[in-house]
């Protein structure tokens, strides 16, 4: 396998050096130096990240990296989060588990995002991997508490079980009781997505009791406020805690018990949960607020005055998720109290209402940009915006890395001038030189894309909706954004020209999603024929695309680079444009 070279290090030395190299990018670079480094590196790579489960096959991964201990896989396109990807599209993990069961007996960590995970998959994990430690199912679906019971029962050294934002079929809360009495290894447990009214609370208490290393615990909505104190007293070492619902009739003894329990948690830095909040119980948190760095109140339907009071007790806050009940006034308070703020997310309380129900405008975001110099990541839903505000934000926060603005009504212009918001977003990309992620909204012409193509050199992900005038817009992005990895577009007048002219660019990206645009079926076929390293997939739930003229636009299009060739598991509404696959249904 190795050539003897007088001047080269023994393999063991190289292996040891490589073991300090954790990032995938660096590992990939190492593997390109020479053949022997490629060989050594592939035998000692322990962690693999696969951003698109259809870009490569399990067999290929196993063939190249025989000693993997940790795998991360992502399935559905991001727009699946907003119901744009039909049910049954794919992202099934079972085949991966089945192949890895044979090849990686020592696999210890599986992290999945937007994948379909069945109980069968979970049972297979439970019985195949003796050293299984970490299971993260982020936004997954397809499994029930039966599958979880299998994991709980079999995984003797489970450290992490995180089901965040997944959809789980709650058949019974008793799966928690399947953790054996000998299981004391849990460090992180997130069951916040479970809807069941019957989470076996006594089983949960006993589990928390016997896991001294538990650092992160997120309960589900069904757990009532009065139970929190019991849990916290059993786990005062918690760093990250998610409550269940935070509502109860105000009773002094319940309150003081709760306040006491919180104050005994000296390490607690991060809070979430807070469904159904009764504001009178918020002061129970005051003792830990000075230490809090992260607060997720995005389910809490509490009004601005109560939010202001709470936030003003949290000077060290770095991350805040909140509903727009916070209003401009609340954000102004945030700007003056929380100088360490790095991430802000404001969600809409009434997304489908036509009239604003709260006084939250661009002013709130401007205030935060002024008061919080460390601001890096923004997700902001609002109903009006101006170019002037965006320019101010851009100038105040040149360190922004993620900027996602959603003006709720599509194609809303600058409310002061009625101009498109091109100049405002232009300022964002121009001033924020490290911007990696951008989501656009409002009235936008091709000009905004010209700015993005010119200045967005570090941009990796761009989300576009109801914007642009012509293919020129798309062309600017594809030809200008050198670091672009993911592009998702909906309802824009982008057609064939820009895409075909920039076909080669698509091989440098992870994926492109286009829906309700103007890409023709003929052009999709052409792209599929000319670019064998791309999978070009057309989604149409109403009728086969070839039952219409070739010039007809396709409904949804998903293009991604792949070394695995066309999919084997395509649902009936999905057509591959690969020449090798006959379009037959």
């Amino acid at each position, binding site marked *: 396998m190795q050539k003897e070279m007088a001047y080269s290090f023994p393999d063991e030395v190289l292996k040891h050096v490589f073991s300090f190299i954790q990032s995938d990018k660096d590992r990939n670079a190492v593997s390109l130096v020479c053949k022997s480094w490629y060989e050594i590196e592939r035998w000692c790579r322990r962690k693999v990240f696969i951003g698109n489960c259809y870009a490569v096959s399990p067999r290929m991964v196993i063939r190249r990296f025989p000693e993997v201990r940790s795998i991360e896989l992502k399935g559905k396109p991001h*727009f699946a989060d907003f119901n744009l990807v039909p049910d049954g599209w794919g992202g099934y993990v079972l085949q991966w588990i089945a192949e890895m069961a044979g090849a990686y007996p020592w696999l210890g960590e599986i992290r999945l995002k937007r994948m*379909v995970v069945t109980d069968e998959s979970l049972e297979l994990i439970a019985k195949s991997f003796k050293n299984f430690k970490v299971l993260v199912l982020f936004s997954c679906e397809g499994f029930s508490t039966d599958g979880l019971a299998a994991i709980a029962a079999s995984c003797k050294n489970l450290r992490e079980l995180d089901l965040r934002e997944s959809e789980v079929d709650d058949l019974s809360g008793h799966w928690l009781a399947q953790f054996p009495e000998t299981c004391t290894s849990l460090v992180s447990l997130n069951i916040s997505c479970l809807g069941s009214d019957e989470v076996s609370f006594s089983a949960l208490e006993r589990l928390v009791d016997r896991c001294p290393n538990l650092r992160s615990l997120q309960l589900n909505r069904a757990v009532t406020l009065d139970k929190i104190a019991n849990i916290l007293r059993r786990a005062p070492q918690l760093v990250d805690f998610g409550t269940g619902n935070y509502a109860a009739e105000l009773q002094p003894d319940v309150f003081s018990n709760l306040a006491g329990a919180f104050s005994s948690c000296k390490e607690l830095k991060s809070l979430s949960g807070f469904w159904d909040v009764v504001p009178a119980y918020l002061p129970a948190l005051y003792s830990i607020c000075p230490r809090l760095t992260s607060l997720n109140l995005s389910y809490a339907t509490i009004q601005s005055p109560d939010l202001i009071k709470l936030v003003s007790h949290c000077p060290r806050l770095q991350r805040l998720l909140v509903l727009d009940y916070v209003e401009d006034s609340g954000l102004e308070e945030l700007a003056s109290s929380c100088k360490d703020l790095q991430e802000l997310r404001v969600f*809409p309380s009434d997304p489908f209402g036509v009239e604003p129900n709260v006084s939250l405008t661009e002013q709130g975001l401007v205030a935060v940009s002024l008061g919080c110099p460390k601001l890096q990541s923004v997700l902001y839903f609002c109903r009006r915006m101006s170019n002037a505000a965006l320019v101010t934000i851009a100038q105040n926060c040149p360190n922004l890395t993620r900027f996602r603005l959603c003006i709720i009504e*599509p194609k809303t212009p600058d409310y002061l001038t*009625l101009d498109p918001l091109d100049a405002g977003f232009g300022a964002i990309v121009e001033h924020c030189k490290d911007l990696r992620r951008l989501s656009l909204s409002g009235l936008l012409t091709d000009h905004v894309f010209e700015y993005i193509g010119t200045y967005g050199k570090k941009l990796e992900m761009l989300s576009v909706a109801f914007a642009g005038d012509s*293919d020129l817009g798309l062309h600017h992005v594809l030809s200008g954004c050198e670091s672009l990895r993911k592009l998702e577009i909906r309802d824009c007048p982008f057609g064939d020209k820009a895409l*075909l002219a920039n076909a080669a660019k698509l091989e440098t990206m992870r994926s492109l999603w286009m829906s309700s645009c103007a890409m023709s079926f003929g052009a999709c076929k052409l792209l599929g024929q000319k670019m064998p390293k791309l999978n070009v997939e057309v989604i149409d739930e109403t009728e086969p695309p070839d039952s219409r003229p070739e*010039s007809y*636009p396709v409904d949804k299009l998903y293009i991604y680079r792949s070394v695995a060739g066309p999919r084997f598991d395509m649902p009936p509404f999905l057509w591959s444009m690969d020449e090798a696959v006959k379009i037959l249904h």
Partner: protein
Amino acid sequence: MEGSVGYDNDLNLRATELRLGLPGTEPVSIVRSNKRSLQQVADDDCGVNGCKSDDQNETAPPPPKAQIVGWPPIRSYRKNNIQTKKNESEGGGIYVKVSMDGAPYLRKIDLKIYSGYPELLQAIENMLKFTIGEYSEREGYKGSDYAPTYEDKDGDWMLVGDVPWEMFITSCKRLRIMKGSEARGLGCGV
């Protein structure tokens, strides 16, 4: 929409692009008119750029403000969380999960939008791509391997259709399309 405004002046795309059809012909793009109606509504609002409502052959009257699929971009569980609050106060939709034996994923439907059993069953058939048999009170669902069942407030599994519709939608917690012998077992003696 196939605008050539300033296009060929700024880019020499022709030299690089892949094209359809014979050289010298311009590809024609037909846009389905039903997709334009929302855009038309929005275009009518735009100020500076002027209205682009002349592109279509059909000028449909602006539709009422329909909810656009997937917009605003909020995850379902967030919507559901807000929804649940609203349901309690305004009596909104009745969302139940629909599972089917053998299918890897669940669906959710709003029972309130159907006026009766035929509509509901038709919708489920379309959604999960299968056929339910003919219903008879005595024999349940005949003519198919599948039977639609539901779990009621007491935790019992019942055959869909056995109780009056109004009673059904208030007591149904979840739906399950059962397959095979289990299904036939429920068909009689309910």
